[in-house]
């Protein structure tokens, strides 16, 4: 069995040779940066009236900031006001959040003795020059900020840290009560989903949340795997981790553009639902593995029919609803065909094994 994404090594779980604890390296690296930080206020706000609020905020930040070569934390105003000259970091141990591409770490940021904030820290290592890492870093931060402000998901932004030529960090408030869909054992969910009302409710709410996002102009998530769908004790479901997402709050007439972004989101979701459980970054939930009948039928029952219903309902609201309803119908018609083909392919692939 292959395990331990953090190590980058493959080995049998029964025997435990020495391995490199990359997570520990990242935590220790961050711990060394924090005491050397100077703090500035990050006051670039998302302008939701812009056609592309994420890109707009990113460009305004790049135009306004000054680099000194020393590590700087640009913190949101309500976090920056806690800073009194002293800042330290205490890491957490965790079970969740291990499937992230970037190796997210967690802990408390302490501002002196009395104030602290629990945070999730996503590192962006500068490997092949700064430009690429900087773009990903700011896309992550402002993508999340835009999602949070627009109310389609995301976590409360804390700020960003620029450690010169080493690592860039994007910080959000850590909601300790969140759980992600990849942390749930879905093996008993199908075929009798009616016997699992709690699980069925999660997928129903996921359909609602994703339909809301896809009804917001030409907005999309870009990385809609199960590790990026979160739920909480209130039963809410919303996407997190918006590095690859974008928001275009105005309606786009071009069917191909709208279709491409929606299809990518739903295809990634399908892949996550259908792929078998493995240990690795692309591990799936294997939701359909116990289904004798068509996986497409099962997908419709637990998610897609409800997604379509919400898309049509949301399209019928607003002042230009006739045009948007027609465009949405065209888009859903195309999605139907291509998603069914995609799922049939996955069913053939995985059921042959």
């Amino acid at each position, binding site marked *: 069995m292959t395990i331990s994404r953090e190590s980058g090594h493959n080995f049998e779980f029964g025997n435990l040779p020495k391995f490199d604890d990359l997570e520990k390296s990242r935590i220790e690296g961050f711990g060394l940066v924090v005491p050397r930080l100077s703090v500035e206020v990050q006051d670039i706000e998302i302008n939701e009236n812009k056609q592309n609020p994420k890109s707009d905020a990113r460009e305004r930040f790049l135009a306004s900031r000054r680099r000194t070569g020393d590590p700087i934390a640009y913190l949101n105003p309500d976090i920056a006001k806690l800073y009194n000259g002293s800042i330290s970091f205490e890491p957490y141990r965790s079970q969740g959040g291990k499937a992230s591409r970037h190796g997210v770490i967690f802990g408390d940021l302490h501002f002196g003795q009395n104030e602290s904030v629990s945070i999730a820290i996503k590192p962006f290592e500068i490997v092949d020059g700064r430009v690429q890492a900087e773009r990903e870093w700011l896309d992550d931060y402002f993508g999340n900020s835009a999602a949070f402000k627009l*109310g389609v998901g995301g976590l409360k932004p804390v700020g960003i840290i620029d450690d010169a030529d080493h690592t860039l960090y994007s910080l959000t408030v850590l909601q300790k009560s969140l759980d992600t869909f990849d942390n749930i054992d879905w093996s008993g969910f199908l075929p009798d989903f009616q016997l699992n009302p709690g699980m069925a409710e999660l997928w129903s709410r996921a359909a609602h949340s994703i339909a809301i996002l896809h009804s917001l102009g030409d907005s999309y998530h870009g990385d809609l795997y199960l590790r990026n769908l979160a739920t909480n004790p*209130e039963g809410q479901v919303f996407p997190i981790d918006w590095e690859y997402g974008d928001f275009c709050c105005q309606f786009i007439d071009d069917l191909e553009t709208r279709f491409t972004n929606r299809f990518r989101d739903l295809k990634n979701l399908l892949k996550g639902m259908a792929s078998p459980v493995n240990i690795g970054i692309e591990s799936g939930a294997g939701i359909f593995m116990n289904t004798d009948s068509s996986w497409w039928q099962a997908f419709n029952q637990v998610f897609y029919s409800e997604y379509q219903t919400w898309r049509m309902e949301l399209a019928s609201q607003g002042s230009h609803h006739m045009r948007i309803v027609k465009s949405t119908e065209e888009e859903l018609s195309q999605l139907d065909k291509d998603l069914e083909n995609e799922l049939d392919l996955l069913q053939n692939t995985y059921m042959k094994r």
Partner: protein
Amino acid sequence: MSRFENFEFDKDQSFERETAKRFSFSDELINRHDILRGTEKKSERFIEYPTPTNFNLEIRSNLIAKHDILGNQINSSDYGKDTFKIPYGAKPILYGAISRTLGDYSYGDSDLFYDLGVLLNNFDNSSNSKIIFKGLIGTNVALVDFTSQREKGLFLVPGCEMYAQDVASDSDNLTYYLEKLQNEFLNRFTNPTVKQKFIDGYSLIKN
């Protein structure tokens, strides 16, 4: 969240509702309820169930003294009912996916099942006579994620004491639990290393 919330209610209005199933410790058999109370701006989580009898009460007291019980008991205004305030994000271990992560800052199944072994050993020895836990382990053990390295992350849920049963002093509880865990956790407990970790924990062999 703004206009696109999943719930439509006034942020300042107080509410009381059952915790979502993924997180819930509600159990009809022992009349235990897992409830969220407060407003959307600030809500808290409680477990409530009928006050135990002397036998079960003694077990719970001993487990609380060992810091094995989730949360803290608070004064309840309802006679005959006990209330515990619990961490907001605590969740039952039953519904969790396999977790094989390793490392100083990870809490994978290896660590979890070791700690579970310790908890069940403490449970079996929390009365004057030997007892065994006869309930569903997966919904009576809580994981509290994102803890500092010195904090515990695994607890018994208030009300677990209601599933205590007397057994003979030579009862082989370990074999019983191994079979029970295999039935409850299936593939998650199949791995021989995870199984051995549980045995080590139950046998109080240092991790």
